[in-house]
C-alpha cells in the first residue's frame, strides 16, 4: 500500500500523505481489515446460499458430501493450517527485519499454498472423471439428481472462489518475497508483510469453514 516517493527527511518507506510511520501502519492495517470485512460479506453470500439449500434438500446434500474425498480435503486443511503458521512466523520475523528468515518462511508458505492448489487440482479432475460437474459432465440420474447438481454447483463455486483467492495470494506472496529480497523491508517498515499475512490467514479461515460444511456434514448420516 505504501508509496515509495523519495522525500527528504522522510523515513524510509513513508508515503508522502502520512505524517509518520505509526500513522501509515495503522492506516494499512485498518485498510486490510476493512477489505477483509468486504470479503467476509462476499463469501457470506455463498455460505448463506449453501446453508439455505442444505436445509431445503438435506438428503441430496448428504449424498453430495459423501462424493467428496475427506482424506484429500483433510490433508489440504492441514497444509493450510501449517501455511498459516509459517506465514505468522514470517510476520514475526519481519518485526526484527531479519531478511533471510523472512524469505525462508515466505518460501515455505508459498510451497504449502501451491501444494494446496495441486491437491485441489487432483480433486477437481476426479470430479470430472466421475461426471460430477453440473453443466459440463453430469452422470447422476438418481432421485436427487437436480439437487445433487445444486450441491456440486455450490461446491465448485465456493471452492473455486477460494482457490482463486489462493492464486491471488500466491501472486501477492511472490511480490512481497521479491520486495523482501531487494531489502525493502526493515524493522521499522514492514506493514506490507503484516497486511499480506492478514490476507493469507483470512483465506485460510475461509477454508476452515468450507471443509466441515462441504466434506464433513455428510458423514454423519442420511443414508
Amino acid at each position, binding site marked *: *500500500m505504501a*508509496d515509495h516517493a523519495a522525500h527528504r527527511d522522510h523515513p524510509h518507506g513513508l*508515503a*508522502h*500523505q*502520512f*505524517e509518520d510511520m505509526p*500513522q501509515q501502519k*495503522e*492506516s494499512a492495517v*485498518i*485498510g486490510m481489515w*476493512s*477489505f477483509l*470485512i*468486504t*470479503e*467476509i*460479506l*462476499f*463469501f*457470506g*453470500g*455463498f455460505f*448463506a*446460499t449453501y446453508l*439455505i*439449500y442444505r436445509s*431445503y*434438500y438435506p438428503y*441430496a446434500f448428504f449424498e453430495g458430501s459423501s462424493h467428496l474425498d475427506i482424506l484429500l480435503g483433510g490433508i489440504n486443511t492441514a497444509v493450510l493450517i501449517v501455511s498459516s503458521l509459517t506465514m505468522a512466523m514470517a510476520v514475526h520475523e519481519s518485526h526484527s527485519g531479519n531478511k533471510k528468515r523472512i524469505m525462508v518462511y515466505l518460501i515455505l508458505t508459498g510451497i504449502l499454498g501451491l501444494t494446496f492448489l495441486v491437491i485441489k487440482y487432483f480433486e477437481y479432475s476426479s470430479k470430472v472423471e466421475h461426471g460430477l460437474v*453440473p*453443466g*459440463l459432465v453430469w452422470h447422476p440420474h438418481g432421485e436427487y439428481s*437436480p*439437487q445433487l*447438481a*445444486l450441491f456440486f*454447483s*455450490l461446491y*465448485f*463455486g465456493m471452492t473455486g*472462489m477460494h482457490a482463486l483467492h489462493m492464486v491471488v495470494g500466491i501472486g501477492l506472496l511472490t511480490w512481497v518475497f521479491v520486495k523482501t529480497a531487494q531489502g525493502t523491508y526493515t524493522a521499522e517498515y514492514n506493514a506490507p508483510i503484516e497486511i499480506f499475512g492478514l490476507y493469507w490467514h483470512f483465506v485460510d479461515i475461509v477454508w476452515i469453514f468450507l471443509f466441515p460444511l462441504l466434506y464433513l456434514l455428510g458423514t454423519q448420516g442420511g443414508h
Partner: protein
Amino acid sequence: MAIVERDIRTSEDAPRVNYLNNGYGLKSWLLTKDHKRIAVLYIISISIFFALGGLFASLVRFELMTPEGDLMSSDTYNKVFSMHGIIMVFFFLVPSIPATIGNFLVPIMVGAKDLAFPRVNLLSWYVYVVAGILGTIAVVGGGVDTGWTFYTPYSSTYSNSNVILTAMAAFLAGFSSILTGLNFVVTIHTMRAPGMTWFRLPLFVWSHYATSLIMLLGTPVIAITLVLLMLERGFGFGFFDPNLGGDPVLFQHLFWFYSHPAVYIMILPSMGVMSEMVACVARKRVFGYEFVAFSSVAIAILGFLVWGHHMFVSSQSTYAGMVFSVITFLVAVPSAIKTFNWTATLYKGSIVFDTPMFYVYGYLGLFLVGGLTGLFLSSMGLDIHLHDTYFVVAHFHYIMVGGQVMGYLGGMHFWWPKITGKMYPDIWGRVSALLVFLGFNLTFFPQFILGYMGMPRRYHVYPDEFQVLNVASSLGASILALGYLIPGAYLTWSIFKGPKAPDNPWGAKGLEWETTSPPPTFNFDETPLVTEEAYQYGPIEEH
C-alpha cells in the same frame, strides 16, 4: 514540495502552484495519485454516463407521450428502460457525490494531504472506466432487457440480451465503489489533522463515513449475487433455477440485501452536501450537530434491515413482511431528524440568496415528498396495491433525482469555485436551479397519480385515460433536461472565461475554505491545527 511553493508565493506575478497547473501532460492526469485530480477525472466520466442515461430516459418519455407503442417495439422499450436504470444507478448515482465531491473534499475537510491510499484511489477510477467500457459494449452490442434488478429466472434463463456482460460491468463498478469506501473509512479514522476530533468533523464527512460503511458491507453481497447469476447463465449451475432445485426468490433476497442499502448510498452523500450548504446559507451552526451526525450512521445501520420491503408480494412470509415493514417505518426517524434539523438551522438564520440556497430549498421540498411517500410504500397493505406501479417509480425518483442529483448539482455549484478556481454567473445558477425544481415536479408528480390509478411500470402501452398525465410528465422531463443542460454550458464556460474565484467566495466555514482556490497539490502549505467546532458562523452560539 512545501518549500517550493513558498518560494513562488513571494514572487507576485508568477501564478501560484496549485493542483491544476502542477503538470499539464495527459500522463500527469492519467497517472495522478492526487485525490483532487482523480475527482476531476470522475466528474468527467460520470457526466458522460449521466448524459447517456439521460438519453435513454428521454427515449422512455418520448415513447410514453402516446398510449400506443408507436415509437419502438416492446423488446426495444424493455432494453431502453433497463439501460436507463443500469447506467444511472451503477455508473452515475452510486459514484456521483462520493467519487467526485467526496473524493475532492474528504481529505481536505479532515486536514490531510491526500486519501490514505492514493494508488487505490486511482485504481478505483480505472476499475470504473473498465466497467464503463464493458457497459458501453453491452449497450452497443444489443443492450440488456432485464431491468436494473436482473431478476431471475428471466435474467438467468430466458433473456436473450447481454446479461453476463452487463452484470460483469455492474460487478466491476461495485468493486470500484468498495475501493472508494475503503479509502474514506481509513482516511477518516487515521488521517485527521491535530485537533480534528470526531465531533469537530464537518457533517459532510460523517455522511461519507456512513456511506462508506454501506459500500463496504453491502457491495460485496451484490458482487457475489452477480457472480452466482453469471455462473448460472454461463455454466448452467442451478442456483436460482427452479427446474434444478434453485429458488428465484433467493436472488431477490441477496439482490436487495445490497440494493436497499445502496439506495442510501444514493442519498446519504447528498445529505452531507445539504448540511454544509444549510449552515453556510443560514450563517448558523447546524442545529443539533450530534443528532445529524448519528442519524447518518443510523440510516446506514437500519438500511441493512429493511430489504424485505421490496418483496411484500413475493413468496416472503407475511410475518417477515410485517417485521420489515416496521423497521422500514423506523428509517423515517433519522431522515426526519435531518429534515427538521436543517429547517431549524434555517430558522432565524441570516439567509443568503445565492445559487446554493436555491438547491437547499429545492432539496428540502423534494426529499420531503420522496420520504413521506416512502411511508406509503412501507405499509404492507397499501404496497400490495402500489407495488410495481408508477407510484414506486415516482417515489424513488424523488429520492434519487430529487435528493442525490439535487445534492450533486448543489454541491457542484457550492464547491465549483474551490474545484476550478473560477466563478460562474450566479443568475444562471439560480435560473437553472429553478428550472430543475419545476421540471422535476412536473415530471414526477403526475407519476404518483398514475401509479395510484394503477398504471404499472415497465410497459410502453397504456390505456387512453392515462395520456394527459403522461404528456405532462414528458413535458416536465424536457424542462428538467433544459435545467441540466444550462449548468453544463455555463460551468464549462466559467472554466475558460469565468472570473477568478476568491479563496472563500461564500464566507463559509471549514478547512476547505481556508486553503487557496484551487488548492495546492498537498492541500495545505502546513498541516492545519483545528481549534474550534465545525460551523462557527458569527458569534459563538450556545448549544
